[in-house]
């Protein structure tokens, strides 16, 4: 009877575990970096005059097909934009048609052949000023420095990158392991991260249960031999 109850308990654990973990095992797209997050509390718009560029430098660029996301906050009509990335010899240019009103824009591009630091520019090719959403919050400001028309400007235009497609599970886990090992001591490598996490994930279920089982056995032995050996 006790074994039957334990079997039921284990089945319940498996069922609950599948409920929580299956969604996380689906192949999906991932972030390729957030050079400048959206503001948390205080929104700031940066006006880019006609024929002028707003540029962010020291932007981390990853290889692969990606989508850049930024926001136009102009209430009226705004002209076409040119989105460009520059990192050493690498250059990508994408044109964005004009529009009307605030708009969350996405621009597909291919990243540089290897991880790089580069400059991202949004050029206003239209005849009217365009407002780009950004931030001036101290806690949200990050490393990239903003210039508008070549002039340093306080604050930063919000910008984020995501993968253009869905990552396979293998690619996903490999990417996670590589990213976890960044800014770590030299002995933390992707392989060691993967091995360690597998040991912990499996061990979390196995070790406590084995310890419990062993403890019950030892307690029963002690009860059977109350005076010791």
């Amino acid at each position: 009877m006790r074994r039957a109850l334990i079997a039921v308990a284990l089945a319940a654990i498996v069922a609950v575990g599948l409920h929580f973990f299956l969604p996380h095992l689906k192949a999906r797209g991932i972030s390729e970096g957030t050079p400048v997050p959206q503001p948390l509390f205080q929104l700031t718009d940066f006006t880019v005059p006609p024929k002028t560029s707003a540029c962010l430098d020291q932007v981390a660029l990853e290889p692969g097909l990606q989508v850049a996301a930024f926001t136009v906050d102009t209430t009226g009509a705004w002209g076409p934009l040119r989105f460009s990335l520059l990192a050493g010899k690498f250059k990508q240019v994408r044109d964005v048609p004009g529009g009307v009103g605030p708009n969350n824009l996405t621009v597909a591009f291919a990243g540089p052949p290897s991880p790089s630091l580069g400059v991202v520019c949004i050029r206003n090719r239209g005849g009217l000023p365009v407002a780009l959403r950004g931030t001036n919050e101290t806690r949200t400001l990050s490393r990239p420095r903003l210039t508008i028309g070549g002039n340093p400007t306080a604050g930063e235009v919000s910008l984020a990158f995501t993968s253009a497609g869905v990552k396979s599970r293998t690619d996903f886990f490999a990417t996670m392991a590589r990213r976890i090992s960044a800014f770590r001591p030299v002995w933390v490598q992707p392989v060691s991260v993967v091995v360690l996490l597998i040991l912990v994930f499996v061990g979390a279920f196995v070790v406590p249960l084995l310890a419990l089982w062993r403890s019950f056995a030892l307690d029963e032995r002690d009860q059977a031999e109350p005076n010791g050996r």
Partner: protein
Amino acid sequence: MSNAPRSSRVRAAVVQPLTAILAFAFLQALAWTIVIPAFQAPDEDAHFAYVQQLVEKHRIPNTTTPGSPYSTEFIIATTWAGFEPARGDPQAHTGWNPAEETAWQQQEKTVTRADRANGLGANPAAQNPPLYYVYESIPYWLGLHTSSASFFTRLELMRLANIPLFLVTVLFTWLLVMEVLGRRWCAALAASLVALQPKFAYVAAGVSPDVALAAVWAAFLYVGVRIVKHGATARRVVAVAACGIGALLTQPRSAAVIPIALLMVALAPRERWRPVRIAVVVGAVVAAAAAFFAFAQTLPSWVKSPSSLHPWQFVSYLWQFYLPRLPGMDPMLGPKYGAGTAWVNRFYGDFGWLEIPFPGSVYTGLRWATLLLIVLLAVGLVLCRDAVRRNWRVAVALIAAVVLELLVLHVAAFEALLSNPGDPVLTGRYLFPLMSIWGLAVAAAVTVFPRIARAPVAVVLLGGGAILSVLAFTLTIERFYA
């Protein structure tokens, strides 16, 4: 046993449940130190800066000096790694690009000792006594002076130094449960649950005195229970005094150790009282209290003027923290924030800077489980009243420890709310000093079940703990790296 071959003794030790649990706890703690990006554990930046000042400038920071507590080296590292914008903002990510890391390494080469030592501004962690930071200064100093360890390597070494403290908490949970319940399976259940407790493991992986406090309290409570059960021997008296002083020198929230230590000595079997030992304990406690308040440089306002605590308002605040407001009661002081959020959600989850929650269904389940735990303990006290009566001293000591520690936390929070009603102050990790008692309580609750159901219930609890632990890793990895 001692005459058995060495290989048999080694095998016996390896297969012993406690050894296995500690080995797993070590691996899990190691994994957390690596998975959590730098300074994405609560207040880790302030604690690190405290240690850096201690080692580089040989000074204890304060909370008043104008300027930033973060050194130039700190700012360089965190700027390239993108840590500040990511703090508490789920849409932001920390850095992982090799080009960023290379750029940081190049700039790190230009950092001088002056750049490491110039974080002279006010540090909120400076309100803590220095014991934990002295402990953490050892790995920092060793890393710097034996291998010229980089900024992030020094941080990792400091995180690794927390692992023994985490293991000590698990160990003393086992010992406490063996002392009180006397059954290995109860100890295995309790120690495993403490090791698997996701928020405890997360916080313990960052530079933070919370894990030191949990370790010292776990030892304090175990020795205290031994005093209550077996008497105040010289060794136990010295040990409990040392643990109590250690707790006070780690975190001001440990003020409850003073009355708890006195109570435990008072509850010790009378026939084993020795005036000298009692005098030692009382003297140590008084000395520690004096040092504690001297460090704090002020007595709490309610000590100088008890009426400033507004007793009825305090009772109203305390009631509404745990229970619905009664007709005629004033609205609760501070924001809408109570035991469900503080003692359940933030005790088990809300990782990072509170921006990584478990799914809502998990919190609902945990709240019901907490209520069930309380009901089972109450039922157990009735069903096992004969055993409780025989061991009433231990029961009183443990219940008093919980009540007194909660009271200290609530008084401190209430006092803070009176001057700043916007910040509820209390959060789940403030219960970590009672971690071993939590493990004991869960194990005791399982003993209320019929004998045939205890193993299945324990299996469910351990499975649940494992699910929460792995889910915490999953959510954390996705939040920072995906």
